[in-house]
């Protein structure tokens, strides 16, 4: 069965069972994602992929990676409401995990230049990627969620080495929170937007010789070269 819907004003037909994210991808509209990953089941934890559906009074934000396509649905992937929500989500993610490279890159791509909230330096944002990786791709189920609310965490039962873990490292490989990146000289406030910043942090590169820069492409480095 094909389902027809309107995405940013464009008509598109998709196979039933596809998600709004698939529809947007199909048409080439970018939607940032964090907890979503090809090959893993959709989970809807980070809410970064919000889009707006419906019209007028009834318009609402939904996570596109979990929302199935529906006949006649009207979707906006970049309305001002969506962008505002996305920025807020990113700012909050950034506050809980300011050291994460993935989150920093996302934040700077969305024009966030300053951290407004207190930084918690959590080492996990509970996106559940590793849990799904372990279960769905590695067929191990060595790690999972534990507790709830504030005390929710990811790990092995009883916090001891799991018998079913094969030390494949898949969980670490896909973790968006544990890649660290350069925070320049003001780790409390800096969002490394790299070259996108007017004040490129890396212009004084000599000072940071032994730090690894992930910026791609790094204009500052290019400048340095010539």
């Amino acid at each position, binding site marked *: 069965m094909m389902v027809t819907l309107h995405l940013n004003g464009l008509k598109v037909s998709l196979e039933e069972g596809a998600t709004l994210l698939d529809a947007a991808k199909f048409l080439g509209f970018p939607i940032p994602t964090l907890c979503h990953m090809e090959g893993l089941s959709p989970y809807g934890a980070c809410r970064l992929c919000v889009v707006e559906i419906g019209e007028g009074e009834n318009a609402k934000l939904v996570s596109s990676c979990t929302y199935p396509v529906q006949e006649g649905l009207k979707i906006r992937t970049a309305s001002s409401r969506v962008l505002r929500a996305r920025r807020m989500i990113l700012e909050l993610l950034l506050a809980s995990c300011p050291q994460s490279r993935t989150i920093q890159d996302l934040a700077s791509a969305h024009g966030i230049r300053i951290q407004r909230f207190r930084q918690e330096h959590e080492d996990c944002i509970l996106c559940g990627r590793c849990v799904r990786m372990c279960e769905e791709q590695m067929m191990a*189920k*060595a*790690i*999972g*969620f*534990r*507790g*709830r609310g504030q005390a929710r965490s990811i790990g*092995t*039962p*009883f916090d001891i080495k*799991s018998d*079913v873990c094969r030390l494949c490292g898949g969980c670490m490989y896909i973790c968006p929170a544990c890649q660290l990146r350069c925070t320049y000289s003001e780790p409390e406030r800096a969002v490394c937007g790299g070259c996108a910043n007017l004040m490129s942090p890396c212009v004084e590169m000599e000072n940071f010789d032994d730090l690894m820069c992930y910026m791609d492409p790094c204009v500052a480095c290019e400048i340095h070269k010539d």
Partner: protein
Amino acid sequence: MKKEIVQSILKKNDGSRSGLISILEDIQAKQGYLSEDALRMVAEKTKRSLVDVYAVATFYKAFSLQPRGKHLISVCLGTACHVRGGPTVARGFEKNLSIKAGETTHDKEFTLETVNCLGACALGPVAVVDGHYFPKMKTSGVPGIIEKTRVGLDHVEIDTDQRVFPVEVSCARCNHSLMDPRHPIDGHPSIRVTVSFGHKHGWLALSSLYGSYNVASEYEIPTDAVAHIFCPHCHAELIGGAKCGECGAPMVPMIVRGGGVVQICARRGCKGHMLDLIGTTIG
């Protein structure tokens, strides 16, 4: 021996893959907590991965992964109890037991926990000890409760052979008084209920003297018949979950005026009954 307990519980819930919570509840009830071995066994026997079992066990507050004391004290810190001084009561318990909330005393006698609303807000601040409610708690009452708990709160069950006194009861459902002054038995107003057994349906008057088994009824109830007792006002069946300790028939609960519950066995001729007045005598 622990192993056997878990095994028998698993056997009881055999075949039902959906019954994880009830399995864990049973184990918790038997062992007082969920041990690592128990969880591993559950995972293995129910063909779930340990991660899933562990996730459920840690998700619900009702489950504890640490051994708990013989007596469980829950102090309510819900909104209503909080404004009425719940935290002070909690501190009182903490001081008296020299533990913090969430901990167990060294002698493994008491576990103290705080909860968020026990659904008895009008009685706040409330503490529940081994299932017994203590309303309108004051810190001064704490040592008394701990003492009583050490002796065993259930000892307060009163044996009729030594005591005979009139009680006034009401329906547990509609709270309507069941007393009937027009048909006195033993010189006291009787307890009037509706009874049904076999195909018969009629009134039944019980003596309100606790300890007397004199009854009058519209139809003669054959000995050993298990009757259904109804409230004559709201027509709800007076039935609780409890079973008679003597014969296993269902118990008929009635609210005692002034607080507490009296339960009588629904089997004609059986003298099984129970009076529970705790919660009013102390606290």
